[in-house]
């Protein structure tokens, strides 16, 4: 178990540092401007997050300090005129910092020499050892513990202890307080020296700060852009050697690119690890019993994606705890197991990660959703007869529905689903809700493994080029060969046994058409939606590097990012699903 979590220590420590830093910033703000509910909440959230991950790492002391802090903040939050003793919180944070620093245990050999004429030397040794145990872990003793206790040693016994510097100081002070001890020796242990010799093996794992990896990925992106610009120039060259050499260079670069992108992958556990405790605690607060099952938490995902995914996931889980799973009494009445269940299953298929969050709660109450949607004007009466699941899900995730807090109580869902969806789309992902009233709700998140470099098609629209991620593209077809027809004035494509409504790319983007012939059809399969987009021309299919997203561009919901192509100019990356959703309205 300990070994298992140690793998995540790096990410834990980095995250802890980040959180501490943020908390300190908030505290400084509070000190300067006074307490506000927002700052308190933010601080509380940070403390809560770190508590969760400390608990998962088995960092009991840190967890306890944070738990106390959380209690304190909780009380302050509830008072009408909140006052916060900033220094007190700083002190606690300092304690956590030193605990974090003191984590690396050191091995020492401690030899204790007792006075030759003391009575009951075995018992004396026993007391000394018991006291040492308060500050250090005893790994080994010479002679063995039983012999020491029985006094079966001449005048000295040796212990192999693990302790950090502070603890070691305390051990020294402690031994000094025994006048039965003639003298003692503490030396870094031989075992430690051995370990250092073996360090070549250990060094295979090194810590790299996440920002550094981000920088490397950025440089890699720049190199790829330059490479793409070089490519046409070199291909035109007469020099055969140059062309061959460039080809080799290109394939090496592609290998390097894969390796670099993998650097940023961390196990999903990093954000799921704290959940069992969190769910337990939250459920308890509501008087519910909830069992949690997590599968596939070792699957690795881009750290950036994982960070952004944390809040949406928490949202969904809070929904399940608060509104999905019923109270034990209600569950009994319904003939269900009084203990509810939330399961989270993570799966990886090719370049895509699926996270499935499922509860066996009340499910979404369809009638109430319909009623509410009609009241808020999202749904018209004539739509009701043919209302399918897809439309219900659309309603649930529409901003005008889900931002209303009443929707939350009514539907048992709703709150923040729009925010969840938006986050996922920005990550190039999607999500699907399946729910059966009375039986539970199942939400599947779909996200790419990596954000930095995506497989994409470049297509021509109007006079510009646009990028579409390939992860939803089921196929690209020549329009000439497609079976197309009209139904109620809408155009459809038939493929196999499926019908795909047809959209024109230029229309979706609001581009003026110049009567170009639409030659290509991209067939898209999303979580809830299947459709086809027609465009004039597919320019290329290639890996594109996603540049850091500019906030202003991100305000356009269907633009998920920017890339730079070989001409050195920036191009927009378009999410096909959200642009079609927008186009339908």
């Amino acid at each position, binding site marked *: 178990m300990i070994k298992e979590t140690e793998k995540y220590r790096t990410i834990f420590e980095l995250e802890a540092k980040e959180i501490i830093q943020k908390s300190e910033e908030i505290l400084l703000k509070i000190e300067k401007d006074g307490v506000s509910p927002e700052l308190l909440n933010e601080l509380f959230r940070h403390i809560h997050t770190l508590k969760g991950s400390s608990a998962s790492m088995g960092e009991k002391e840190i967890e306890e300090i944070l738990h106390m802090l959380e209690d304190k903040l909780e009380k302050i939050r509830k008072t009408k005129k909140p006052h916060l003793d900033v220094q007190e919180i700083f002190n606690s944070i300092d304690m956590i910092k030193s605990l974090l620093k003191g984590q690396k245990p050191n091995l020492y050999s401690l030899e204790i020499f007792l006075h030759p004429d003391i009575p*009951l030397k*075995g018992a004396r040794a*026993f*007391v000394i050892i018991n006291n040492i145990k308060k500050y250090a872990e005893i790994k080994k003793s010479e002679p063995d513990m039983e012999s020491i206790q*029985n*006094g079966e040693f001449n005048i000295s016994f040796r212990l192999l202890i693990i302790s950090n510097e502070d603890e070691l100081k305390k051990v020294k002070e*402690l031994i000094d*307080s*025994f*006048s039965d001890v003639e003298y003692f020796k503490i030396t870094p242990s031989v075992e430690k020296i051995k370990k250092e010799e073996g360090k070549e093996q250990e060094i295979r794992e090194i810590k790299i700060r996440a920002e550094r990896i981000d920088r490397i990925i950025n440089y890699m992106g720049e190199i790829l852009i330059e490479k793409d610009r070089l490519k046409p120039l070199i291909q035109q060259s007469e020099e055969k050697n140059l062309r061959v050499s460039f080809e080799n260079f290109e394939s090496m670069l592609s290998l390097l690119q894969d390796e670099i992108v993998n650097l940023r992958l961390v196990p999903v556990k990093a954000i799921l690890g704290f959940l069992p405790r969190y769910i337990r605690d939250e459920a308890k607060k509501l008087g519910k019993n909830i069992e949690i099952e997590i599968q596939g938490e070792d699957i690795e995902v881009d750290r950036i994606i994982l960070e952004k995914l944390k809040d949406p996931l928490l949202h969904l889980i809070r929904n399940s705890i608060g509104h999905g799973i019923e109270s034990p009494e209600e569950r009994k009445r319904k003939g269900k197991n009084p203990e509810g269940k939330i399961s989270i299953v993570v799966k990886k298929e090719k370049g895509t990660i699926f996270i499935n969050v499922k509860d066996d709660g009340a499910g979404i109450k369809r009638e109430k959703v319909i009623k509410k949607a009609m009241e808020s004007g999202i749904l018209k009466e004539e739509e009701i007869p043919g209302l399918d699941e897809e439309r219900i899900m659309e309603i649930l995730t529409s901003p005008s529905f889900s931002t209303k807090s009443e929707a939350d109580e009514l539907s048992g869902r709703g709150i923040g689903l729009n925010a969840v969806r938006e986050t996922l789309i920005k990550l190039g992902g999607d999500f699907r809700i399946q729910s059966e009233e009375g039986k539970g709700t199942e939400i599947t998140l779909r996200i790419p493994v990596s954000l930095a470099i995506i497989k994409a098609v470049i297509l021509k629209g109007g006079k510009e080029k646009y990028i579409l991620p390939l992860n939803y593209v089921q196929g690209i077809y020549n329009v000439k060969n497609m079976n197309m027809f009209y139904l109620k004035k809408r155009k459809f494509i038939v493929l196999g046994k499926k019908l795909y409504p047809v959209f024109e790319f230029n229309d979706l983007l609001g581009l003026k058409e110049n009567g170009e012939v639409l030659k290509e059809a991209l067939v898209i399969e999303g979580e809830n939606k299947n459709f086809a987009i027609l465009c004039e021309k597919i320019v290329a299919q290639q890996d594109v590097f996603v540049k850091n997203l500019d906030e202003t561009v991100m305000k356009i919901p269907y633009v998920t990012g920017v890339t730079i192509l070989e001409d050195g100019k920036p191009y927009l990356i378009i999410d096909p699903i959200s642009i079609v959703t927008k186009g339908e309205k």
Partner: protein
Amino acid sequence: MNPRILIVDDAKFMRKLLGDILKKGGYEICGETSTGAEAIKLYKELKPDLVTMDIIMPDMSGIDAVREILKTDPEAKILMVSAMGQQALVLESLQAGAKDYVVKPFQPARVLEAVERIIKK
């Protein structure tokens, strides 16, 4: 306030001797008794900071008294008082949860050293 100590020993002479050492060391003797059963009762009443416990007493052994006291208060701090050569009994009481021991005849410095170390924690 000075830390309060309960002395348990069947010999009045020993109680006096130990009491004087402790008083000189700045401790308050809040009670004393000659039997294990009384010790358990007094512990509950007085809630002393530390108990000195003789190992061999007429009614019950000091070790059993240690076990009983620790049952009512797992945090109880108990210092065993032993005669020479009782290694096995001392070990048993330490394993039962006593914090330390002193050996008769007393060396005042040793007694105070042990008491101080226990109470400090």
